[in-house]
C-alpha cells in the first residue's frame, strides 16, 4: 500500500510519523513517501518561532481547541525525556498584553500557571492595561523537523523533492520570557511580539492577509524593530542576525477531512490536513492523530473490500 504525504512542514512530517507509528505493523506492505518542494530549514514551519499558543478566541471551534490540548499534553509528556533537547522542546513563560480587558482564552487551563498580570508587572509595559502570564512550551521547527525527519528515515520512509510572516532574529540571550502584544482592532499578530528561542530571539508582528510576497520588506523591518524596542527597551543592544518572511496558511478553519478523487478510472483516497494559519505547531499533533484516524477508517473500508474468500 503506497501512501504519499504532500508537504514536509510540521503538519506533513508529524502526520507521516503518526500514521506510520500506528499502522505500519498492521499493514506490512505500507510504503510511505514524502513529497515537498521545500524541506527543513526552508519550510514555513522553520520560520515559526515555535511557541505553543493558539489564537485568542476559538470562535466556537471546539474541535480545534481539543487538538491544541492534545498537542500540548503530548509535548508536555515528552519534556522529561532524553529526546526533548533534540526535538527543540522546552518550557517557556511569558506575557500576553492588551490595551483593554479581554475574556480568558480557550487555552487558559491547558497551559501551566495561567494568571492575570499584577499592576506592578503592567508597569513594565506602558500603554498596556491588562495581560496574562503563563508557562507554555517552545517547539523549535529547526530542531523538530530534523528530529521528525530522522524518526521517519529510521522507519524507512522515503523523501522526494519534486508559501506572509515576517520576523527578525536577534541575539538577545538576556530575554527569558515571550511577550506577545495584542491590538484587537488590527488583528492577531499585527502587534509586536518577542519570542526567545534556544539560540536566537524572534521579533515579529506582521500578519498581512492576502500578501503572497515572501521577500523581506524594509518597511516591515522598521515596523517590527521600532515596535519591539519600544515594548522592550532592553532589546536596543540586541544584534540582528537574520530576517525572514513566510506565508501562514490561513483559513477560517483547518481543513481536516477525507476526499475521494477520481481521474478517469483512477481513484485515490485523499486526507486533507492544511490551513493551520499561525498555529500549526500549536495544533499539529492533535491534527496528526485525527488524520491517522481517518487513515484507519480508509484501511477498514479497504480491508472489508479485500478480505480473502473463505475456503469451502
Amino acid at each position: 500500500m503506497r501512501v504519499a504525504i504532500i508537504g514536509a512542514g510540521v503538519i506533513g512530517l508529524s502526520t507521516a510519523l503518526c500514521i506510520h507509528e500506528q499502522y505500519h505493523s498492521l499493514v506490512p506492505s505500507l510504503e510511505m513517501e514524502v513529497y515537498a518542494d521545500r524541506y527543513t530549514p526552508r519550510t514555513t514551519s522553520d520560520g515559526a518561532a515555535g511557541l505553543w499558543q493558539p489564537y485568542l478566541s476559538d470562535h466556537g471551534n471546539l474541535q480545534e481547541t481539543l487538538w491544541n490540548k492534545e498537542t500540548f499534553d503530548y509535548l508536555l509528556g515528552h519534556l522529561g525525556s532524553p529526546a526533548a533537547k533534540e526535538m527543540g522542546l522546552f518550557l517557556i513563560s511569558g506575557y500576553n498584553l492588551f490595551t483593554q480587558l479581554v475574556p480568558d482564552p480557550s487555552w487558559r487551563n491547558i497551559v501551566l500557571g495561567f494568571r492575570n498580570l499584577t499592576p506592578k508587572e503592567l508597569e513594565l509595559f506602558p500603554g498596556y492595561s491588562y495581560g496574562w502570564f503563563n508557562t507554555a512550551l517552545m517547539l523549535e521547527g529547526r530542531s523538530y523537523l530534523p528530529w521528525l525527519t530522522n524518526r521517519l528515515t529510521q522507519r524507512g520512509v522515503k523523501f522526494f523533492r519534486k508559501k506572509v510572516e515576517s520576523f527578525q532574529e536577534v541575539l538577545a540571550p538576556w530575554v527569558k520570557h515571550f511577550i506577545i502584544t495584542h491590538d484587537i482592532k488590527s488583528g492577531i499578530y499585527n502587534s509586536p511580539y518577542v519570542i526567545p528561542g534556544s539560540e536566537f530571539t524572534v521579533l515579529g508582528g506582521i500578519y498581512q492577509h492576502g500578501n503572497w510576497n515572501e521577500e523581506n520588506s524594509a518597511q516591515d523591518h522598521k515596523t517590527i524593530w521600532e515596535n519591539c524596542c519600544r515594548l522592550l527597551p532592553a532589546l536596543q543592544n540586541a544584534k540582528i542576525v537574520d530576517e525572514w518572511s513566510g506565508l501562514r496558511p490561513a483559513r477560517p478553519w483547518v481543513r481536516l477531512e477525507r476526499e475521494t478523487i477520481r481521474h478517469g478510472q483512477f481513484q485515490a483516497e485523499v486526507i486533507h490536513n492544511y490551513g493551520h494559519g499561525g498555529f500549526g505547531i500549536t495544533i499539529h499533533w492533535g491534527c496528526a492523530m485525527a488524520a491517522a484516524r481517518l487513515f484507519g477508517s480508509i484501511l477498514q473500508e479497504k480491508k472489508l473490500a479485500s478480505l480473502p474468500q473463505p475456503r469451502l
Partner: protein
Amino acid sequence: MAAPKVAVVGAGVIGLSTALCIMETCPSCSVTILSDQFSPNTTSDVAAGMLIPHTYPGTPIHVQKQWFKETFAYLFAISNSAEASEAGIHLVSGWQVFKNTPEEELPFWSDVVLGFRLMSEAELQKFPQHRFGQAFMTLKCDCPPYLLWLEKRLKATGVQMYTRKVADLWELHSEYNVVVNCAGIGAQQLVGDKKLFPVRGQVLKVRAPWLKNFIRDGDGLTYIYPGIHRVTLGGTREKESWSLSPDPGTTKDIFDRCCSLEPSLRGAQDIKVKVGLRPSRWCVRLQREVLSQGGLKLPVVHNYGHGAGGFSMHRGTAKEAARLVGECIAALQGSSSRAKL
C-alpha cells in the same frame, strides 16, 4: 572639610555598590576602592546573583525586607532600560519546590518579587519528588557583567580603583578620612571578626540555552539559575570550609541532583566549575565604629557578612552604609570646626 577622602575596602558587589551610593549621596567625596581582587575574581563573580533573599537570624525582618525592596526596585528599573544587557540584569521566572511543605508558606519577600503564587497540581507534576511549590518572577544579576558595569559607572564619577591587599585598616589612616569595610570573607582577617565564617559553595556554570526558567529546591542546596549565557547549577553549603579548589565528587553530585530536577540538563555543554566562600554571619555587620589607637581616631563603616544574600540585599545595605558614611563625615566636620575655636 573640602573633599572628604573615603576608602572602600573590597570590590565585590558590596564594595562597588557601596562606593556608588557614597558618590550619589556625597558627590564632593573623593572615593577610592582598594581590593586584592577585582572582577572576575571576587566571590560575587561565582554567585548566580539571584534575587531570592536569605534570612538573617539576627537582623529584624522589617529591615531585611526594606533592604530587599530597595535592591529589587533599583535593579527592576535597570532591567527595563537600554542598559539592561550591559549591566547583566534580567527578569527570570520559575519555581521553588519543596519535598515537604515548609513551615512558612509565604516568605517575607513574597510581595516584593513579581506574581508570587503557590504552584498548581499540574505544575507540580513536573517535579514528582516534590509536594509543594511557589512560582514567581524575580531578577538576576549576571556577573561579571554587573560588576563591570558598576566599575564603569564608578570610573565615570571619578572613583579610583587600586589592586592592593589591605592587611590592617590603620594602614589607611594617613591617606583617608573614613574607611568603609566591604571586605566580605576577608573581614575575618582584616578586623578579626570571629563571628564571620565561610560557607563554601561549589557551582557549575554550563551552556544550556533552552532553559528559560529557574528551579530551586526549597532546601537551598539544589538550584538551576539560567543566566544570559550560562546556567548556574548548584550547590553546596559547607560551613567552615576554606577550600577554594573544586571537588570532582561534588561536581558529579551537583550535576546529578540538578538533572533529577531538570532532565534536559543531561545535554548541557561546556561545564565550568567554580567555588566561592559565602561571608556568613548571624546578621550583616552594618554599623559605624571609631577605631582609636594612641590618640588617633579612624572612623570606619562596616558593611559585610551578607552570606548567601549579598545580591538580594546589596543596594539596600549600600545605601545604609552610605548614610553612615555621611554621619561619619558630619561628625568629623563637627569636631574639626570645634577644634578651630
